[in-house]
């Protein structure tokens, strides 16, 4: 139980949630609820892993993982944007589809060791006491990418013109349409972006944080936690990033609780009977529930809510949002 290790590991595992959650923020901001994150992540993890194995290059793996997630998400886009199908059911079927594809194509990948994303120290910054070892050393390059990506995503959504178009399409597509913004185009684009980021999140697992292919255990529900985080983050990329890191740290802290024989001067029940560990394994999911309840209450108080057109198909020339 070492605070430095917990923070360090939390940043690494939090990066997975960061990519997936920010991707989902983009999709939902455009009005498309994509519940298929888990499936896209799993497909991304598989695609990245097997490509890295075949090409002996983790970076190619990363790109293929993003493309795989993105292309899969287009199936959701087509069905919900053009066919106006229910987004919840379509997202669920995307999860089945992604999981099935990943399992079928990932047959026989377990136990292989492809090249992974390099782990590096940032020169100078890693020398800072405490902050250096936690934030800037012994991290996968992807963690540093995450540091930069979250504020950039925030800036993009709130401070740029395309970001404004994105929000407009999610809040009032008919108004955006009159301004000459292509509602369908924007929605397809950000669904694709969300899929790419989910694929990246998957590859972050299989090529960096816990390298390997363990079929459905690879993602083990993190895609769903990411979807939950988006609501908790109130569709704000920075909050999604913080949420992801916080979650990663809590996760590690919970795991570490099992280590010491004595805890605060008492015999540690988790050490005495390791079966109590099942209650610890529940905690990430219980925490998500608590975070959601808390987030929903705060959102109601501040009258913040989901993008108004979230989950509502847009049909030009019809009454609606």
């Amino acid at each position, binding site marked *: 139980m070492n605070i430095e290790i917990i923070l360090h590991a939390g940043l690494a595992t939090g990066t997975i949630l960061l990519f997936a959650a920010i991707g989902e923020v983009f999709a939902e901001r455009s009005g498309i609820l994509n*519940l298929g994150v888990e499936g896209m992540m799993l497909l991304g993890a598989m695609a990245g892993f097997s490509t890295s194995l075949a090409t002996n290059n983790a970076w190619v793996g990363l790109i293929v993982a993003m493309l795989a997630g993105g292309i899969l998400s287009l199936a959701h886009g087509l069905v919900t944007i053009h066919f106006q199908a229910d987004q919840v059911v379509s997202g669920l079927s995307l999860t*089945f589809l992604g999981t*099935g*594809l990943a399992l079928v194509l990932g047959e026989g990948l377990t136990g292989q060791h492809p090249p992974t994303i390099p782990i590096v120290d940032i020169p100078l910054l890693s020398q800072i006491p405490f902050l250096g070892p936690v934030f800037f050393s012994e991290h996968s390059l992807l963690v540093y990418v995450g540091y930069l990506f979250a504020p950039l995503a925030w800036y993009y959504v709130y401070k740029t013109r395309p970001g404004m178009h994105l929000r407009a399409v999610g809040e009032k597509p008919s108004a955006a349409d009159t301004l000459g913004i292509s509602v369908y185009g924007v929605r397809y684009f950000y669904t694709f972006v969300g899929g790419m980021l989910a694929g990246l999140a998957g590859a972050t697992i299989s090529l960096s944080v816990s390298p390997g292919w363990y079929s459905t255990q690879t993602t083990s529900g993190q895609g769903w936690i990411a979807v939950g985080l988006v609501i908790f983050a109130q569709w704000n990329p920075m909050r999604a990033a913080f949420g992801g890191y916080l979650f990663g740290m809590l996760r590690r802290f919970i795991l570490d609780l099992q280590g010491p024989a004595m805890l605060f001067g008492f015999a540690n029940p988790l050490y005495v009977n390791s079966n109590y560990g099942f209650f610890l394994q529940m905690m990430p999911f*219980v925490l998500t529930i608590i975070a959601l*309840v808390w987030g*929903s209450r705060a959102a109601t108080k501040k009258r913040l809510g989901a993008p108004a057109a979230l989950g509502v198909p847009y049909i030009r020339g019809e009454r609606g949002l």
Partner: protein
Amino acid sequence: MNLPYTVIFEKRTADYPKWLPAVTSLVSVLVAFIISGIVLKIIGGDPLRVLKFFFTATFGSWPVFSDTMVKATPLIMVGLACAVAFKMKLWNIGAEGQFYMGAFFSSLVVLVPMVNLETTPKFIVITLMIIMGMIGGAIWGFIPGYLKAKYQVNEIIITLMLNYVALYWNNFWIFDKWSDAGFQMTPQFEKIAWLPRLSDLAKEYRQFSGITLHLGVVFGIIAAIIIWWILERSHWGYEIKLIGDNPQAARYAGLNITRNLVLVMMLSGALAGLAGMSEISGVVHRLQEKISPGYGFTGIIVAWLAKLSPFAVIIVSILFGALIVAGREIQPSGLSNLLQGIILFMVISSDVLLRYKIRLVRLEQEA
């Protein structure tokens, strides 16, 4: 590129013909099979052989058909659970967790034990297990229902998270308190807690030997009739459908939406819990890990493919029961998962045909 024809989507003004949903569902399933076959071909399999295997392994003889029905049994109940909730546009995707809680609670009857298993008649033990199973599922449905009613928390995520919680909760008890000599399962239940099976009659009727179909399928059919009655014939069902179709109108009509929300989630959970009970008491006869190969999730597809109609749920469940039976032996193992995903995608895509007429129009005529 200048094609002489163009495709026009024309919004339907009149109701679509009654037979259309059944036809689109059927065609979607066929198309899904064809697409999966193509995928299988690409990765180097033999689709026709797999298809032939699929039919012989699931409908080929009475014993294998009974296997298919055994797998269809929990799907009927879970499918109904999803259908009821979806009717009210409540996205209960926690049937898997409710299934496990139902299994856990009904097991308590035997494991605690709640009654003296030696002297109590079988009828009472089974009834108690049914009630406990439904309570277990209902509790697991109450939590997301209450949170949604009270705090407007998204039920999709909550039900999903509760799936994992239920799984670990179950694991704790089968690894710890009730572990059978350190194995990840409880000891086998006494025969009194087993649902009657057709093979029990093998002494009198030779043809029933090895037929594992159990009483649970009857629960499923009765549940389907009750749910049909609730949805189509009762006042409550009318409220559920009204809230689902037009919550605004329902509110103006003075319906108590929050109360209905919690009640429907509990009903949905109870049905999934009943499925858990039937699986425990009819098939595995003990509480263990992996009682369900994802019944709760398959139930979502079943409900949707059945267009939320209780009787169609039974028919669709048999198809998916077959998929599960065959899927255990078809390699690669993810194939039935993939097929399920493609089926669902095809079904929701085909819904567009119910809302639009698609016509080919000659361009010259347009001009």
